[in-house]
């Protein structure tokens, strides 16, 4: 590459100095090797996230809500039969489950729940809180997916309680 920048020879009588300079890359390699060692040692390979929930009835301070947010109370009950979504405005929707999977566990209709929650959010833009009431037999994985669906629909303040 550097050869393309060489001046033409032969015109002048005086011998010119070579323009190519040798750069010592050993310190750069040392630095990079140290960086790689440090980053490999401190690398976090599994990306774990968190879903923040409130629990009701344990003396926890309640989240401050505006009057508009307090007007609508959204409750989502989940159990063997599926979901029961209800609001203080009188809305009551049952979302039955999709039967049982090969492992015998209940398969919840999360897609339909997400659509319903998005419709609810669009009709009540101020609503941001939902209370998820789960039966004792509900697996933790399904509960987390329901909370994730609620957060994805815009109901970001999730409280969890038992039935």
């Amino acid at each position: 590459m550097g050869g393309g920048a060489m001046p033409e020879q032969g015109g002048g009588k005086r011998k010119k100095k070579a323009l190519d300079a040798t750069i010592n890359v050993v310190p750069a390699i040392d630095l990079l090797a140290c960086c790689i060692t440090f980053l490999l040692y401190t690398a976090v390979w599994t990306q774990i996230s968190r879903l923040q929930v409130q629990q009701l009835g344990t003396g926890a301070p309640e989240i401050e809500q505006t009057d508009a947010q307090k007007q609508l109370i959204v409750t989502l009950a989940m159990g063997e039969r599926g979901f029961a979504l209800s609001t203080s405005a009188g809305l009551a929707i049952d979302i039955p489950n999709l039967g049982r999977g090969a492992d015998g566990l209940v398969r919840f209709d999360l897609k339909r729940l997400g659509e319903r929650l998005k419709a609810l959010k669009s009709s009540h833009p101020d609503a941001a809180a939902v209370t998820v009431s789960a039966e004792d037999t509900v697996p933790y994985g399904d509960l987390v997916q329901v909370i994730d669906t609620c957060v994805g629909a815009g109901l970001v303040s999730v409280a969890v309680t038992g039935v």
Partner: protein
Amino acid sequence: MPIVTPGKRPAPRFQKSKILGGKMTRGHKSTNSELNVVPMVDMFVMLVIFLLQQFSATGEVLYMQKDIKLPDAQHGQMIEIAPVVAVSSDQVVVTGVKVADIRELDSDSGYLNIPALEERLRDEKKRWEFIHQQDPDKKWDGVVNIQADKGVPFRIVKRVMYSCGVAGYFNVNFAALEAASTVAPGEPAPTPGI
């Protein structure tokens, strides 16, 4: 001792000699060879860039365990440093110490709290208060991370949550594996918190 080129080395009095000095070095190839380190430097730079992208300033808060399979979540937030309650299908562990057995929890009476878990969390809270006693601006936020297997029933998680609440940890974070988000390009991502 200096590093010298291997091979025959004439005595200093022969090196200056035009006759003997020339004979000793004639026909010898130079043992110095130039290594092209440019590809290696390129590879190092790419590795550093990749690892910097993976770098997390908070470090590894939760350690993956063989007996705990976390569920996936698309809208989770970044995990923060807090005491970790790990709930597997066999036991409940707080910061590496076993506090309860799932079989015993299933078989005991209908009390919601888990005394050993409460005690352990109270110790953690006392430790936090001791560390921050000179820092009045730091308010207790009561954050606890619950890392449970996705097959654990809610009746166990409920008892863990209740014990956390009684011990002062009312701000519960459920741990989940970060899945790729499917938020549409025009749609704003939901902001946690009110």
